[in-house]
């Protein structure tokens, strides 16, 4: 199904390319950089490094689920116009290949997770031979949910911006240092918050394998995930649902956590059967327009507050 949609998109993209080609021919070469990040939270992190010197846009809009994102010809145009592209990497932007192939022009691609080792897919206890939903054979991309890893993001982005715009080197270095300090502050705050949750309740059940790094850093246990995948663009079989129910019952996990953009039908089914609450308000893969998660740091604080509220 996805393959069919993607080939249709590629065909439409080629058509849009013709239009883009006509458009770009009339553009004069522009010396200011045009920086595009794949998602809203990446754009925010990058903006903090770029400061006032550059403007960073986001390819995906607010509320899009990057795992299930379907591209349009307009996206090709956006990429064509960019001179610096910031990606998370680890195949998070599964849709990017055809866009890059079809976009005009040259650009510097910064991979935020460069130099970081991702988790690979493990079998949870009691999980069956999962089928083929491993979109992300490269590993778990959700590194941004651990602020300590985001420090590396910042460093990579800083170095990339310096490469694209050497004159701004000092500014980028200074901004990066400031932001890293903020990230450390965030890390300390999260640790404090987690302390308020009783140890035996630091249990997470999520829609897909999104909180691995967060759990590892802050001492949570991932009891199970509904979808046995690093991507939300998957479906669960009956046995997988049954296993989640068993896992919840035997661990005593108090809640299932979903991101705002995820479909909650299966979670509701499981909740109906086990009696746990379903929290659908987490913002794991996208910022919000305005409060409560307008920036990356606000997003993390908001998520942690929601977790604490449910688990305390």
């Amino acid at each position, binding site marked *: 199904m996805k393959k069919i949609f993607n080939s249709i998109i590629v065909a439409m993209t080629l058509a849009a390319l013709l239009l883009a080609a006509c458009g770009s021919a009339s553009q004069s070469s522009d010396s200011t950089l045009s920086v595009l990040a794949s998602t809203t939270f990446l754009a925010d992190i990058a903006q903090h490094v770029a400061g006032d010197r550059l403007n960073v846009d986001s390819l995906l809009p607010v509320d899009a689920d990057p795992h299930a994102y379907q591209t349009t010809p307009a996206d090709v145009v956006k990429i064509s116009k960019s001179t610096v592209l910031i990606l998370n990497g680890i195949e998070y932007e599964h849709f990017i290949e055809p866009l890059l192939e079809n976009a005009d022009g040259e650009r510097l691609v910064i991979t935020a997770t460069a130099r970081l080792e991702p988790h690979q897919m493990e079998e949870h206890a009691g999980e069956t031979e999962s*089928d083929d939903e491993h979109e992300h054979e490269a590993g778990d991309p959700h590194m941004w949910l651990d602020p300590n890893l985001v420090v590396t993001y910042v460093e990579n982005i800083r170095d990339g911006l310096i490469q694209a715009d050497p004159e701004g080197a000092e500014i980028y270095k200074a901004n990066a240092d400031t932001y890293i300090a903020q990230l450390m502050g965030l890390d300390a705050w999260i640790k404090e918050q987690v302390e308020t949750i009783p140890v035996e309740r630091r249990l997470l059940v999520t829609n897909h394998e999104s909180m691995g790094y967060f759990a590892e850093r802050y001492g949570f246990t991932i009891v199970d995930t509904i979808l046995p995948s690093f991507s939300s*663009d998957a479906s669960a079989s009956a*046995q*997988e649902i049954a296993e989640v129910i068993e896992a919840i019952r035997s661990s005593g996990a108090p809640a299932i956590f979903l991101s705002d953009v995820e479909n909650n039908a299966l979670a509701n089914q499981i909740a109906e059967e086990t009696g746990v609450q379903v929290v659908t308000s987490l913002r794991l893969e996208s910022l919000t327009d305005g409060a409560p998660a307008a920036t990356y740091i606000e997003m993390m604080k908001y998520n942690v507050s929601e977790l604490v509220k449910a688990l305390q």
Partner: protein
Amino acid sequence: MTTFIDWLAAPLSYEFMQRGMIAAVLVGIVCAVIGSYVVLRGMAFFGDALAHTILPGIALGYLVSGGARDTLFWWALGTAVIAALGIGLISKNSEIKEDTSIGIVFAGMFALGVALISTVRSYAVDLSHFLFGDVLSVSTQSLWLILIFGGIVLLIVFAFYKEFMTLSFDPILAATLRLPVGFLNNLLLALIAVTVAVSLQTVGVALMVAMLVTPAATAYLLTHRLSTMMMLAAAFASLAGIIGLYLSFYLSIASGAAIVLTATVFFLLVFVWKKMAGR
């Protein structure tokens, strides 16, 4: 022996599987009964068209209500009834051959539905649920809706049984007897529409026609009485629903597809048996 019973009982220890099975059985029965008329009156294409035509209605509901599944039933129901009567109207009043006009409407409406759903940037999973069914997420509320509306359909068929039979066998006789032919035809279209809306969550748009046609066609091969045909069809459909869900549970395959494949296997078995028995 105990392991076989364990194996049978394991899925049933989960409420979501119980609900799924009840839904599959109920939907199977209603589809089989209405499907008997669909098969006898040669309306399979109409049934398929109707299932596809309701996609834009569901899409609108999806956009407006942010994907909440329970309100989608009402959107599907409303769209289905309007679409059924509309298609009925087009086929009566058009110069273009009936199957062509139906084909034009259904493809266009289906495309509209996909277009609307695709405006939500992460639509693929939800779209596949609309197309192929999502029997694992039948909530208790959905189950009540299936029971109530399915029950209404069966009651109306029971009440008008001989009228529908007469109308389907000999429309001229029906007219001669002054049966309200126009009303009955539209009523049957509406019943098909309600059946499609009720079955949507279990089998999905793409496979709906199979649930209407395959069990009824299997029964048609086995009996000469309409009432027996309906009951056999209901039995085949229910069995296919249950077996399909067990297959889905143990083999991790999509439930709607598993149910339809099982029903198709039943048909093939009966078909081959009849040929070999020389009947």
